[in-house]
């Protein structure tokens, strides 16, 4: 165990810091969940790409920097320290990119990875279906083979970024007679293809970052399939593993929020409820714990270890700390908590609280994560209602 940074790691931090100080927009961008804001965030992706900071963990061959996980953490720390924008390209960087690297053909890698690294291709997830929320194996959307094409019909929902993204990735049933996990394939579909209809879903905050995607006999080449026909489930499980694992929520994000919460507390100290003080300390302490644990997992992975059901521990911890952190902020804001703007600026605590409410729901609800922990880590029986 060595919990100090090497001189090289420190030099890397300094390099990131210098670049961020020069390039991070001075004013916060509009929200990613609206058209104008999304475009501004894509612009920021291109700025990042111009400095080669878009896909820092990807191999250099695909336009990345091949950073190890420790340097990725340092990068993220500096990213959030600088208050840089959210990533419009999140689905590509952390979900599809690694999937293509692991399961894609050389042709697919060349076709998709480099444009993604340049910030030219934004991706939407297309996992859930109206009656298959957390139960992904209940998928019904079909892809029927027709020569060198698939003809896709069906409906996806809760598709993040789909309102504005260029492409989507998801599972489709390529064997019409199959059930549950079998007969599914992982297919990439351009969202401007004929037969694709996007219906934005208005969210709590009134914006529309999620959407439904309707596929009406959409024709895509078989070359858009990642891995073999009928192997979609395993690919998707690997993708979901990336998501729930190390990189879904970088700890720096919560550390930055906890630091802002401390400032908010100092500002409102005289009129704060008595429990807020301990809640603020706890928010900071938990953000730290999450960061430390990520360093620990990163060290394990770098030494050849794997992340298993521990990813579920992570998901529960960050999502519940994020909600508690923002709940505390709302209580400190008091009467002003409900206002969309405070002092002429967007009420970021209200926005953050609303966003935090999605944490325990998405990427596998926390109820499902607790089942996984109980069954896979603790070995409790799967009897009963799961």
């Amino acid at each position, binding site marked *: 165990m060595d919990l100090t940074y090497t001189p090289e790691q420190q030099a890397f931090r300094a390099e990131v810091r210098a670049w961020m100080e020069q390039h991070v927009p001075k004013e916060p961008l509009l929200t990613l969940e609206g058209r104008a804001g999304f475009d501004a965030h894509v612009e920021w992706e291109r700025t990042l790409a111009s400095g080669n900071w878009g896909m820092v963990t990807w191999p250099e061959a695909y336009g990345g920097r091949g950073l190890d996980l420790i340097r990725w953490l340092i990068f993220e720390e500096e990213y959030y320290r600088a208050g840089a924008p959210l990533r419009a390209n999140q689905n590509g960087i952390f979900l599809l990119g690694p999937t293509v690297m692991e399961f894609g053909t050389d042709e697919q890698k060349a076709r998709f990875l480099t444009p993604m690294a340049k910030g030219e291709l934004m991706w939407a997830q297309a996992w859930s279906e109206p009656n298959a*929320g957390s139960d992904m194996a209940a998928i019904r959307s079909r892809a029927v083979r027709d020569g060198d094409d698939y003809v896709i019909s069906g409906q996806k929902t809760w598709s993040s970024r789909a309102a504005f993204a260029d492409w989507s990735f998801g599972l489709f049933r390529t064997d019409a007679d199959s059930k549950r996990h079998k007969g599914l394939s992982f297919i990439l579909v351009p969202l401007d293809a004929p037969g694709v209809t996007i219906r934005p879903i208005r969210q709590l905050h009134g914006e529309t970052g999620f959407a439904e995607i309707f596929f009406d006999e959409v024709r895509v080449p078989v070359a858009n399939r990642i891995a073999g026909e009928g192997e979609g489930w395993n690919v998707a499980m690997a993708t979901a593993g990336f998501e729930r694992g190390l990189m879904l929520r970088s700890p720096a994000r919560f550390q930055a929020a906890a630091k802002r919460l401390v400032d908010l507390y100092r500002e409102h100290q005289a009129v704060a409820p*008595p429990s807020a003080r301990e809640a603020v300390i706890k928010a900071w302490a938990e953000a730290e714990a999450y960061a430390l644990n990520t360093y620990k997992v990163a060290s394990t992975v770098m030494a050849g270890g794997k992340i298993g059901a521990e990813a579920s521990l992570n998901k529960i911890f960050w999502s519940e700390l994020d909600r508690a952190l923002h709940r505390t902020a709302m209580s400190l804001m008091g*009467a002003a908590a409900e206002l969309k703007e405070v002092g002429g600026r967007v009420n970021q605590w209200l926005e953050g609280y609303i966003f935090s409410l999605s944490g325990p729901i998405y990427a596998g609800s926390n109820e499902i994560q607790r089942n996984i922990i109980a069954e896979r880590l603790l070995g409790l029986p799967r009897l009963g209602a799961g």
Partner: protein
Amino acid sequence: MNFAFTDEQIELRDGVRAYLEGTHGAEVLRRLDAEGGRDPAIWRGLVEMGLTALIVPEAQGGLGLGLIEAALVAVELGRADVSEAVVDSALVAPRLIADEAQLAAIAAGELRVALAHPVNPWVADADQAGLVLGGSATGERLESADPLRRLFALERAEADTRMLDHAALIAAAQLVGAGERMLTLATDYAKDREQFGQAIGGFQAIKHHLASVAVMLEFARPVLWRAAYALDNGHERASVHVSHAKLAATDAAVQAAETAIQVHGAMGYTYEVDLHYWMKRAWALAGAWGDRAFHLRRLDDAMIGGAMAIGPDQSFETGMHHG
């Protein structure tokens, strides 16, 4: 000592509930949301039902009822997410006004009153008010997370404790109603929505989340009624009881909101279901008329500060009848 509603009170509550269920469903909220938030027809309906006359003295054409009735009605307004400028005007203001002509105009639905107080950074529905009590608004519109609230920036206000107590009581009652509605919405959703081959309401985790909300609401209610009774009867500790009610109602409603969205899953995060209207109302009312910190401080002064006797024999005024 009798902690039960009269038959008349239950009739009033059931009548208001039935009326609002029939006329003020979620489709009305969606329409108001799209069209700007207020509808004269809804206002007229509430006036015709007699809500604006509820606590106005009979001499001024009112029904002369008390704060128990006002709170019972406010629970129903919260349950239906009614947003018309009726709450402050009809269920609070009459207790703060002596002018007989004004009272008569309120009862008749001809005068709407807005309330200004320094603990709120806004005046609700100031633009529709013929009278702003306690201060004034600037006219600048403040945007709430709750799309059906119409708030205006406060210009100046005096700290009138009677106003605060009455308005906080009515806010607490609305929170209880909103909390109850969110529990119903989540329960209904859990009965309908299937996953892994069964209704999600059959899963113990969902059951226990919802049961916990039921517990919080159950024990917020009697606190609300004691506060209404004490304030109506001028009991010495009424302010403390009101703060207790506002806290209990806030905590129950905020918990109901977080539970309801979790039970709804991704659906709850959208405009596809109607839950969000009540969630946002709960967040808004949690801070209105004294936030948690404010009301905790009043309990703190009374209890830890020692301003008030506490103990097993102190739940109610033990002296003679007041006011």
